[in-house]
């Protein structure tokens, strides 16, 4: 069995009397893409904040590579190799790809002078590693000239450079076209092939279904379903299940119109 990068056991988080998360179990293994699905208010963002150490859980246990950790914090999360890639505002769009990858971690030599050729070499290697190769763009290209999917690629390459073992992609495909989404999927597969793990968070069940090895459905602060890729036949299965969860009594006529519901999700 693959090494377990992180495991959350019975994690709860309450803000005053309001429960954002009530006893969530979640684990990510090495080289695995876990798809986290949930409607607005299901607790996805709270879960991301707990994973990145920004928010501390009210109760529960966090295990890194099988060992329980005490004093979970943003620094601990980074040490454990967890990096979150947000869709917007992560990149400096007037700068080159190189400057974005090495933002805050410039490769410097004597007296802080940049090792320019080493940076380009390293950037090229990282971009190759995630499958971002192009005849049009070089490490010197300005990020503002890249498309949305390619910008995600730069952010992912930066996360890998920061020795990330688990990359959390927060809604990476939400605002992207089909071809751009395909690019992001390509990067995700390359990252998985390199033995790193990805937690893919999405609204669009079809996107998550296409990329993830395992699904976790979050609903009102609880894990409603954990399913392996092999156990779920189609994205529609997942959609039907989510509708069942959302409307336990069942709304008449809704199940027949499964693919209509998918658009709403």
């Amino acid at each position, binding site marked *: 069995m693959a090494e377990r990068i992180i495991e959350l056991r019975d994690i709860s988080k309450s803000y005053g009397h309001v429960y954002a998360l009530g006893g969530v179990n979640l684990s990510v293994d090495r080289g695995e893409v876990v798809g986290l699905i949930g409607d607005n208010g299901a607790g996805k963002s709270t879960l991301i904040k707990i994973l990145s150490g920004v928010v501390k859980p009210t109760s529960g246990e966090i295990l890194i590579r099988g060992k329980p950790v005490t004093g979970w914090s943003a620094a601990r999360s980074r040490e454990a190799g967890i990096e979150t890639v947000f869709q917007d505002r992560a990149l400096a769009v007037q700068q080159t790809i190189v400057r974005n990858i090495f933002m805050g971690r410039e490769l410097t030599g004597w007296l802080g002078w940049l090792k320019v050729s080493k940076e380009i070499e390293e950037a090229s290697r990282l971009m190759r590693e995630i499958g971002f190769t192009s005849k049009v763009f070089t490490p010197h290209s300005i990020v503002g000239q890249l498309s949305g999917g390619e910008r995600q690629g730069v952010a992912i390459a930066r996360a890998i450079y920061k020795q990330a073992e688990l990359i959390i992609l927060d809604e990476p495909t939400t605002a992207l076209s089909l071809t751009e989404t395909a690019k992001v999927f390509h990067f995700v597969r390359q990252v998985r*092939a390199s033995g790193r793990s990805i937690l893919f968070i999405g609204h669009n069940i079809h996107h998550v279904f296409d990329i993830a090895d395992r699904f976790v459905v979050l609903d009102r602060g609880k894990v409603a379903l954990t399913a392996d890729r092999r156990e779920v036949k189609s994205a529609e299965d997942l959609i039907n299940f989510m509708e069942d969860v959302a409307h336990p009594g069942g709304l008449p006529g809704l199940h027949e119109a499964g693919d209509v519901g998918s658009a709403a999700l």
Partner: protein
Amino acid sequence: MEPNLQNPLGVSRGEPARKEWKHPSDHWLRGFVLDNRAALGTLGVFIVMMAVFMIANPTVFTTWYLYSSVLTTLPVALFVVVPLVFVVTCGEIDLSFPATMGFASWVFALVVQAGYDPFLGTAAALVTGMLLGFLVGSLVVYGGLSSLIATLGMNFLLRGLIQIINEGKSMALTSLADSWAYKIFSSQVYGIPVQIFWAIAFVVLSAMLYNRHRFGAQVRVAGDNPDSAQQMGIDVKRVRVKVFVFVGIGAAIAGTFSVMINFTWWPTAGDGYLLPVLASVFVGGTPTWGGIGTVVGGAIGAVTVSFIQTGVVAAGLSGFYVQFFNGLIIILSLLGHKWNQARYR
């Protein structure tokens, strides 16, 4: 990356990439032009402007005196234009440098007048400039004030302080003429004012600092996307204070040089530089919104601005045309750079 139309969601698992990086412009010259468009554009403006002046009155432009006088005063501007490129790139502005020039050179004058070596005076001026830069920077960054207004206020405040204490009196420093400092910083080599060599060295070093040093890289990133820079572990506030300290250092050097040219310190030292220096930065091709800029462009902008006045007079026009030409050059440059900068937005 080419979209895969047969298989838009891509099933290639871990397929190693074979394509390699390739520059859009295979020819090095084209790459160089693309990377330095702003600076080259400024150079173009300068060449066209000089051509117009020369056609108007060719004989005057063959006299060396004309260039010699520009080369004496230009370095003073260069020492502040260059750090200001860093400040503007960082998303700030500093209008307090004229007073810093006056204050730092005042310290220099006091030390020299007290009979100490001018080198010591220069060192004291540099420390003063750094401290004032730190003060102004801290006020803006940690005080959370608008740099436009806060530095304008500091300019008045510091200048007022100088005027109050000196009661408007200047200081003559005749002993400077025999000093080693004067020979090294302010004499002439084969008729060329030696200041220009120091200024060129400063510009080259700063351009490297801007493009090839961690400091420049962090200044650009902090001006481009401060939230992201902060998230990636850059202390954005510290970077912002540092650029103001850099202006303080530049202003101190500029102030000291201007005193060495005239052997006299005036309480108004530096005052006349505010608008020409600001104009040079923007004529040079650094945009107002932060994140990008060009040190070499700023230097060429300073050359352009300092030749306007000399050129107008030398071309046989009356001094009344100077302001008109100043404005014309600024507007034409901005229009040109607007087209240049489109690719960044």
